[in-house]
């Protein structure tokens, strides 16, 4: 008797925990509310199945506890019941899969007006690059990376000259403007993840990966590395500041382009040589 009761309490406790939990998702700050809705839907359907199955189990335990003078039913198969259960499950699974695939379709199709942001990761830090006035990012190569070329931009690529370099682990984004995050890594796997934006993707050395989102709430957010990348993984944090258009443009105007950075280094070099000569 008490066995069934304890299992019943476990089920009731689980449901109550879900209703009253103080731990739930961090407030969303991007366009991916659809992901949250699909999770909620899955919670209703899946949670319903969980509760139903467990309650039925508890019922059986309470109702059919062993008695010496009773016999169990003898019924090896019930084709009709099995068929009903199979189709009901298939239907439920399709109902969950469909919204999942619809949102994935949005996730892999980036809007045309999205701002491309090059996110470069290494052990253990981030830096960012934005396209300049031409709206295009220059191509890059790991071998080009040097003090005077921190992003490894191909020097011959005309699109690279006006790229905006942000040698900081914090980047500013414009509110309500879709962003296409282009991820690359120079050493191991990383993952640029902001819980409030819901979206993530691994940065893989040797290739460029992408995902997109549209921030829709002004504020500061913490960036976490979400793919294990060695002993400094837990400390590999960064930041995002989502701003209104006006503030964002002020910030953007203060950033250095690749051309300016090259010039600065050349001047440093010339000055350095002069010093050396003296």
């Amino acid at each position, binding site marked *: 008797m008490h066995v069934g009761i304890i299992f019943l309490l476990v089920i009731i406790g689980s449901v109550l925990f879900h209703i009253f939990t103080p731990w739930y998702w961090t407030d969303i700050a991007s366009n991916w509310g659809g992901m949250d809705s699909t999770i909620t839907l899955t919670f209703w359907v899946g949670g319903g199945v969980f509760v139903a199955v467990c309650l*039925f189990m508890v019922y059986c335990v309470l109702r059919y506890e062993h008695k010496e003078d009773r016999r169990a039913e003898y019924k*090896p198969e019930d084709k009709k019941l099995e068929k009903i259960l199979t189709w009901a499950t298939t239907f439920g699974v399709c109902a969950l899969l469909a919204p999942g695939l619809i949102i994935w379709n949005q996730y892999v199709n980036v809007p045309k007006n999205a701002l491309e942001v090059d996110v470069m990761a290494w052990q253990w830090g981030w830096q960012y690059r934005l396209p300049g006035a031409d709206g295009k990012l220059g191509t890059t190569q790991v071998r080009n990376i040097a003090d005077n070329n921190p992003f490894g931009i191909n020097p011959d690529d005309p699109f690279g000259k006006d790229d905006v370099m942000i040698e900081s682990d914090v980047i500013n984004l414009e509110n309500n403007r879709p962003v296409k995050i282009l991820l690359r890594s120079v050493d191991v796997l990383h993952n640029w993840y902001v819980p409030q934006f819901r979206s993530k993707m691994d940065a893989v050395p040797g290739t460029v990966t992408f995902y997109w989102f549209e921030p829709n709430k002004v504020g500061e957010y913490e960036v976490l590395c979400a793919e294990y990348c060695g002993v400094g993984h837990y400390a590999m944090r960064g930041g995002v500041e989502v701003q209104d258009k006006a503030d964002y443009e002020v910030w953007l105007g203060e950033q250095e382009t690749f051309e300016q950075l090259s010039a600065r280094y050349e001047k440093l070099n010339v000055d350095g040589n002069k010093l050396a000569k003296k």
Partner: protein
Amino acid sequence: MSDEYDNNKSYQAQSSEVLDGSAGSINPDIDYVRPAEIPEQDLYHAHSFIEKWVFCQDAKVIGVQYFLTAAFTGIIGLILSWLMRLQLGFPELAGFMTAEHYYQFVTMHGMIMVVYFLTALFLGGFGNYLIPLMVGARDMVFPYVNMLSFWMFFVAVMVLMASFFVPGGPTGAGWTLYPPQTILEGTPGSGTGILLMLISLSLFVIGFTMGGLNYMITILQARTRGMTLMRMPLTVWGIFTATVLAMLAFPALLVSAIMMTLDKVLQTSFFMPTILKAGEVLEYGGGSPILFQHLFWFFGHPEVYIVALPAFGIVSDLISVHARKNIFGYRMMVWAIVGIGGLSFFVWAHHMYVSGMNPWFGFFFATTTLIIAVPTAMKVYNWILTLWRGNIRINTVMLWCLGFIVTFVNGGITGIFLGNVSVDVPLSDTYFVIAHFHMVMGIAPLMVIMGAVYHWFPLVAGKMLNETLGKWHFWITFLGAYSIYFPMHYLGFIGVPRRYFEMYDSPYMTSAVGMNEFISIAAFIVGAAQFILVFNIIKTLKTGKKAEQNPWKANSLEWYTSTVPPEHGNFGDRLPVVHRWPYDFSVPGAKEDFIPQTTAPSEVAHTEVEKT
């Protein structure tokens, strides 16, 4: 060929007579079972202590050896989990632990539990002990290779344990061993530690192949007379299908281990692209880190089912025996096991939705993953329908089975979250994933292992384990483990990432501190509770009640051996002859509420047996 045809015919006649059920119309051929096609195998009997207990060729001893070795690794894995939980719950008490240590513990805990504990225990332990007994064979078909299989596993475990003592310590690359970080500085144990891990895995695969061939061929070729495939206990079906999966999946692990060893030792670039490290470009170029992930998960996902399918099979048998009712929908259960096994090779990239592989794969793998939910759900329905209208003994074994159903359904449903591609995006690499896979492939199979230990201990040792201790063991483990992993899902919703040595003070993560402390305390208690079983076993061996033959009144052949515990050769002078499936419980018209597989139809002519 003509012989075979005739035999089939008489077999069908027999089953139609049984269906008829009316006494008086019994065909004289009713008890006919096809003659044996091959002579019995010669057994090599041990001549010395070493041959009997160390380099033993008896599958039952090998099974116990596998079980004890795997249990030893499990205890190591358990202690490592305590250390991790100490750091996560009470970092101020874990001052001795650096981030390097933490990541090494995480890695070794994962690898040990999945491969060296669960896989070895289910297939090496239960497989060796139960397969020959359950199919009515005297031993595995290749006893010598079987012995080598265990010792290869033993060496693999020793190599793995040795890595704790080499300079730099064991690898801390995460159990998935993703390159490039696995073999680069910046990851703990990227020198000798990772090499020993790769060698140990290779040895494990070699040893496992020897055992796996034995399990498969014994089941296919050495079944006793009358033991058709559709009369096999579901335990055997589960272990058989899992072994086939292992034979196909482990080669992927072996080749990836070899390729990574070459990348490490000879600077080849299978998995290594151009890499900039500490301002210098390394001597690698052109390799693909994602290739490794495909190979790893082509092994890794079937691996989940290599653990799960034997658990499914065993729990079906335990539920049926202790509910005194036939397993509901036996044929559906068999096809579900085989179907899940087949599908498990087409879902691997659901571990890689956010890995940077071509995102269009997501559509395919989400669909295949959710399809696999259908046969899995059918199995769950059939378990609870077996309980329905049963005559359920609420003993320790049944408690573990009920605990399995709750944890497995819980973990299965969170699997639907993670399998559903776009839902996976916010949840992947968070504590939601940790909670999911511990619930579904940690706790649920563990419940089955424990149930199986309490169920078969009287057969292995000839003594009954103490029920009171068993119930304490169950309730602490079940309630404790559930309160570890159920709330942990919610950490994932918050967005707390996995594999973090420290959380610092991110605003949305500080709310998790209290929960982390609670989870850690529960983990300490649950871990300690496992020693109740150790104590129970020692106490029972010394002073326990002697078990009668077939104490649970089960039908399958392992309970009908010539002696308890069974001796080498299992069945005395004559092998048993099988007349029916192992689930004839509570058959109307029968005197007892069970009819053993060896009972001929003419002995129970008045019963209304529906299925043979």
